[in-house]
């Protein structure tokens, strides 16, 4: 049985093709999902890709969160459907309240585009099972509004429950509280991060292949 991983395209999505390609390289079947279509076409997991959904008008991810496809994804996520939000996808997950907190404008106001070192701090989520504990990885980071914020109580709760999945190493590129690059929900099926694993799956095009385990992790989770 081939595992089917859906990749949503919103108007303004940029990285949906790369995400689909990463899914394919990991050995699964990518399925294109459309923002206006509620039907998830029997996919086993969903990726919300990077880009500027609906032009990121109002706030990043704010309009995408109310799209027809998100209605089904939000319901599915509450029932355990694995969902990975990358960059704009992370912003959509926060706007949807599937993940706590919000992403705000980078503290230095510049758009960042760099290869970023991260530590994987939780390898029990649906999307990180193939990483060694405390693995240090390098994948691209590119955003203008990647500063992760939440109130102190929420940050403490995330830390206490091991829900900070990725933390920036060397530099904090955007002013994120506690160097947080990515988090998970309590169940571990919904993960969001600002850096881009789908751009680091092949030596030819990426700085590393450190992004590949994201996509193989979910396959193992689904066949287990």
């Amino acid at each position, binding site marked *: 049985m081939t595992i089917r991983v859906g990749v949503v395209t919103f108007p303004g999505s940029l990285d949906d093709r790369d995400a689909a390609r990463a899914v394919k390289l990991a050995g699964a079947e990518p399925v294109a999902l459309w923002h206006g279509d509620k039907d998830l076409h029997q996919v086993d997991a969903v990726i919300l890709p990077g880009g500027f959904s609906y032009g990121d008008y*109002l*706030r990043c991810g*704010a309009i995408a969160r109310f799209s027809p496809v998100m209605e089904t994804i939000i319901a599915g996520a509450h029932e355990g459907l694995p969902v990975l939000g990358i960059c704009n996808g992370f912003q959509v997950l*926060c*706007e949807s309240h599937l993940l706590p907190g*919000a992403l705000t*404008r980078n*503290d230095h*106001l510049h758009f960042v585009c760099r290869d970023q070192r991260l530590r994987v701090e939780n390898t029990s989520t649906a999307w990180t099972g193939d990483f060694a504990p405390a693995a240090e990885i390098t994948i691209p980071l590119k955003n203008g509004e990647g500063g992760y*914020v939440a109130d102190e109580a929420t940050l403490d709760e995330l830390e206490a429950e091991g829900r900070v999945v990725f933390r920036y190493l060397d530099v904090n590129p955007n002013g994120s509280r506690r160097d947080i690059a990515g988090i998970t929900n309590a169940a571990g099926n919904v993960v969001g991060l600002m850096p881009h694993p789908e751009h680091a799956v092949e030596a030819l095009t990426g700085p590393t292949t450190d992004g590949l385990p994201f996509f193989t992790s979910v396959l193992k989770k689904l066949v287990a």
Partner: protein
Amino acid sequence: MARVVVDVMLKPEILDPQGQAVQRALPRLGFEGITDVRQGKRFELDLAGPVDEAAIARIREIAGTFLANTVIEDFEVRVEELADAPGAATGSAGDNAAEEGAVR
């Protein structure tokens, strides 16, 4: 026709780098003495029907779920009397309708 204005501001504890950039530019333009600038959004909603309690409640719902992200932003809803509306403008517009947004 009636207009309802929704002002959305980042919560005081949330860093506002855009406002800071504006503030830092002021001395260059010769404006001294501005110690802080916070930048927000203003939405003007024109209503087909009357601005009654139900309409305000509905707009507060729109503001709290969509126009503002209450994780990082506060909002304020107020009624603006339009100059050309019949019987408009006795006193300042909608002081009594101003309310603070819900804090999560």
